């Protein structure tokens, strides 16, 4: 149970990256399946060469940013469709990740990694590490919130909302897109580096299916906290990532057939997508402050009826 919190917090770092592309930039970036592994591969390989874990983790972040840069270039300068650009980078990363590690599976002894000192202090388990992870993730969240409120951050948000409009204001949307993809994949790779050090190994297939977990976290968080302000949305992403792991843990605990796990994940995401539409949480939303109103009329009606029922 406690482990689900720990792992959920680490995956929240990845989910925050997915949030930046998927929600802020409106770009479904499949690069993450590869860049998550890249982060783990770089960190594990460097740690094996006695690099200090902090440096190794940062190098992982950097490698992820490079992957994001490539996807960004393909999409903006190469005019390749966004989904395809992500897939291409992801596929290329498979070979690159193998090159980085030299083998498909690279162990990292916990004592050699970032969490080694915590283990030595007896804080490698339980409430302490959760507190440390939580504070770390909140600091990261605050940094993202702050960044999105700067001029550059606002330009990125506007790129996602209405690219043509913001371009008419003189913003180079190619640059904002590339930058967001770099930050996003940097975060995802950073999460990969942390997970590798936490679970004790980097493996070539550790990122397979990751995009589903990322999207699930973002969507679950959004179903609960909405997408009205960046502050709430990023918090929702963190909660979503932890909830996702808790549900997996609960499913394992009740002895659910493992073959049904993917189905469960999909059902979870569908429910999270439907909840706001059915107006379950919307009664808490004040009227007239929605940033994304235009979609369907049934939603508006559902919201109106719940408001009336209130």
């Amino acid at each position, binding site marked *: 149970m406690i482990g689900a919190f720990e*792992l959920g917090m680490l*995956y929240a770092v990845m989910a925050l990256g997915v949030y930046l592309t998927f929600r802020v930039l409106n770009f479904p970036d499949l690069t993450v399946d590869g860049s998550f592994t890249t982060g783990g591969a770089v960190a594990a390989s460097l740690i094996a060469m006695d690099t200090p874990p902090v440096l190794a983790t940062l190098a992982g972040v950097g490698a992820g940013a490079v992957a994001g840069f490539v996807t960004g270039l393909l999409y903006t300068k190469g005019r390749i469709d966004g989904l395809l650009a992500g897939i291409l980078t992801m596929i290329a990363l*498979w*070979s690159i990740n193998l090159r980085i590690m030299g083998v*498909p*599976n690279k162990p990292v002894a916990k004592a050699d990694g970032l969490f080694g000192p915590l283990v030595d202090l007896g804080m490698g388990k339980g409430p302490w590490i959760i507190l440390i992870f939580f504070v770390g993730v909140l600091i990261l969240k605050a940094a993202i919130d702050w960044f999105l409120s700067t001029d550059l951050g606002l330009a990125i948000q506007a790129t996602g909302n209405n690219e043509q409009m913001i371009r008419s204001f003189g913003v180079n949307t190619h640059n904002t897109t590339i930058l967001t993809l770099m930050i996003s994949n940097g975060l995802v790779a950073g999460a990969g580096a942390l*997970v590798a050090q936490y679970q*004790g190994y980097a493996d070539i*297939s550790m990122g397979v299916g990751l995009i589903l977990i990322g999207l699930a976290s973002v969507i679950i968080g959004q179903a609960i906290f909405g997408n009205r302000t960046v502050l709430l949305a990023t918090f929702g992403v963190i909660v979503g990532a932890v909830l996702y*792991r808790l549900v997996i843990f609960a499913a394992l605990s009740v002895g659910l057939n493992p073959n049904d796990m993917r189905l469960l994940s999909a059902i979870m995401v569908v429910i999270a997508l439907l909840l706001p539409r059915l107006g379950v949480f919307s009664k808490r939303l004040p009227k007239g402050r929605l940033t994304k109103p235009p979609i369907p009329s049934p939603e508006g009606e559902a919201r109106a009826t719940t408001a009336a029922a209130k």
Partner: protein
Amino acid sequence: MRKHTILGALGIVAASALALTGCSGGGDTTDGAGGEGSYSIGISQLVQHPALDAAAAGFQRAFTEAGIDATFDVQNANGEQATATTIAQKFASDGTDLVLAIATPAAQAAQAAITDKPVLFTAVTDPVEAGLVASSDAPGGNVTGTTDMNPVGDQIDLLKEIVPNAKTIGIVYASGEVNSQVQVALAKEKASELGIEVREASVATGADLQTALDSLTGVDAIYLPTDNLVTAGMGSVVDFANSNKVPLIGGEVNQVENGAIATLGLDYEALGYQTGQMAIKILTEGADPATMPVEAQTEFPLTVNPGAAEKQGVTIPEAVLSRAETTIE
């Protein structure tokens, strides 16, 4: 859940058998729900796969046959490594007496999460390279187990015996599987001793398999490592071999049953059983995993498939046929 009931039933059968024969030791609680003298054991399996399932079954059979009362919490990560970590953490917090981890990433996850209880692994090809043990003779920590290293060198010898004039052999394997890489390295070493050239074709996904096979056109024989992806795509491998008359030598019995000519086979059920005996030693005799050497299967029975040989244009020599323990019709 069904597994639990079956095991429960097996437990009852074993316990009553013991009572009848008047054996002493173990099995005084029949339902095994954490009674005195009963052990709770967690099994963390990476993915559902016939070989790995057999290893888990063999492990549990060791307990049933020894008449030891144990409840097994069998968990499967369905191939997702984060889930393997969650499973290991669940076992750590449940206060499980011993954990069996099947396949390398599951073992690594268990090792990271569980430090104060014995962890046994099986179906790990190279536990030293995987960082699970300090050395095979003296693991040094709470982790030990069995390796599924197959006798690659002997299998290449077998290939040479069946296809004596082989000059080049092809190996097809998944680039993402650490076990295959280890075997390919061994195969190349052995082949160069015999003066045989090796052509590698690695695949990232099952979809690449056909292309990889096509790139091997012209080789005198193909050696298949115990690779999950290739084994899953045996159908296309056998098609290629039959239509191009390229003899296939397998790395495990399942491949021979599905159309390869022969192998000196690894038996995952027996390997799991061997791991179970190690676990029993730890639980009942207080053996220390740190000083228990990593074990491997010692005898590899020869399995042959004459029908497959015919389709692939070779005849299995009489010397090989007479040695075979299993002949597939």
